[in-house]
């Protein structure tokens, strides 16, 4: 059964019903991410939830400096571009002016857990009613694969060419567990997008977070353990395997703090 390969989103083709298409809240700009990168999967899930909840007009996002610096090219919502490390402070400013809107910040590991550590901790400690999304791929992707705070011991990067050693470069930072201790953290979870199952679970986590945000009970924080095929110098398929074998032991998946309903 030869189907024309150009994309269409016609409701039916030869009697087959449309069951999955790109969410309308994503723009038509193709993603610039490297092949296989988890960033754009998280972008899509975020926009799917915003579409399904019908809150495109109620949501303001804050993009970081890092690979996802161009997030606002893809997300068809009002967005702001923050200075490196400051996305959660910018999001705080937005939320304090627009308390009834949904606000999220989206950051990588260097942005959130290195230069932005103080902003990260204090935003959560104030229990700002925002969703903080944290993409942990254990490397600075945009600048060419340097070591990040979450880089694993012995992991080779462009600035840990002999593998990260704790004597000189300290330990992989489990910022999410740190933040879960803070009373301001209402819902804290660590997810991934390395296979179908994890993608489904992450979407649920995002849905929960937006639902929680309406309750004004504190900060929702989702870490997404993700891959970096280019930085890790692997194919996308290999990177997800490596991630499972090496990242998950250090960064175990699952809800770390869930509200007592």
């Amino acid at each position, binding site marked *: 059964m030869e189907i*024309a390969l150009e994309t269409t989103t016609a409701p039916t083709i030869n009697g*087959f019903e449309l*069951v999955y298409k*790109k969410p309308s809240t994503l723009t038509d700009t193709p993603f610039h991410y490297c092949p*296989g990168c988890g960033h754009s999967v998280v972008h*899509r899930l975020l926009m799917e939830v915003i579409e399904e909840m019908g809150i495109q007009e109620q949501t303001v996002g804050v993009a970081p400096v890092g690979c996802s610096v161009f997030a606002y090219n893809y997300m068809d919502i009002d967005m702001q571009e923050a200075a490196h490390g400051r996305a959660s402070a910018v999001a705080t400013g937005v939320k304090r002016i627009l308390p009834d809107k949904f606000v999220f910040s989206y950051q990588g590991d260097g942005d959130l857990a290195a230069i932005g550590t103080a902003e990260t901790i204090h935003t959560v400690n104030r229990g700002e009613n925002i969703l903080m999304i944290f993409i942990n791929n254990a490397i600075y992707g945009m600048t060419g694969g340097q070591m990040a705070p979450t880089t694993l011991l012995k992991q080779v990067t462009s600035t840990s060419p002999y593998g990260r050693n704790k004597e000189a470069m300290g330990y992989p930072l489990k910022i999410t567990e740190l933040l879960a201790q803070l009373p301001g953290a209402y819902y804290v979870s660590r997810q991934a997008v390395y*296979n*179908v199952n994890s*993608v489904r679970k992450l979407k649920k986590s995002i849905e929960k977070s937006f639902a929680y945000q309406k309750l004004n009970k504190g900060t929702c924080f989702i870490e997404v353990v993700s891959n970096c095929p280019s930085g890790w110098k692997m194919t996308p398929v290999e990177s997800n395997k490596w991630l499972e074998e090496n990242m998950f032991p250090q960064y175990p998946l699952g809800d770390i703090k869930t509200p007592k309903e």
Partner: protein
Amino acid sequence: MIKGTVLIDRDICKGCELCIVACPQESLGLSKQININGYRFAELIQDNCTGCVNCALVCPDVAITVYRQPKSAIKRAG
């Protein structure tokens, strides 16, 4: 057996193969030709797609649109 199919935007696809490993039916493979960006793109290599949406869920570039046979049609066919 439910039948389905996928439309893959060959110019958006970057040949990352994540859909190929996610497909339970092994319906997908990389093309021989390359697209305008120089990537070999994913395409249907067998006609046993069930429209399960796995490929679209993992696709980082939202290149895949999925269609599936409606249940009513299966009863009639079954």
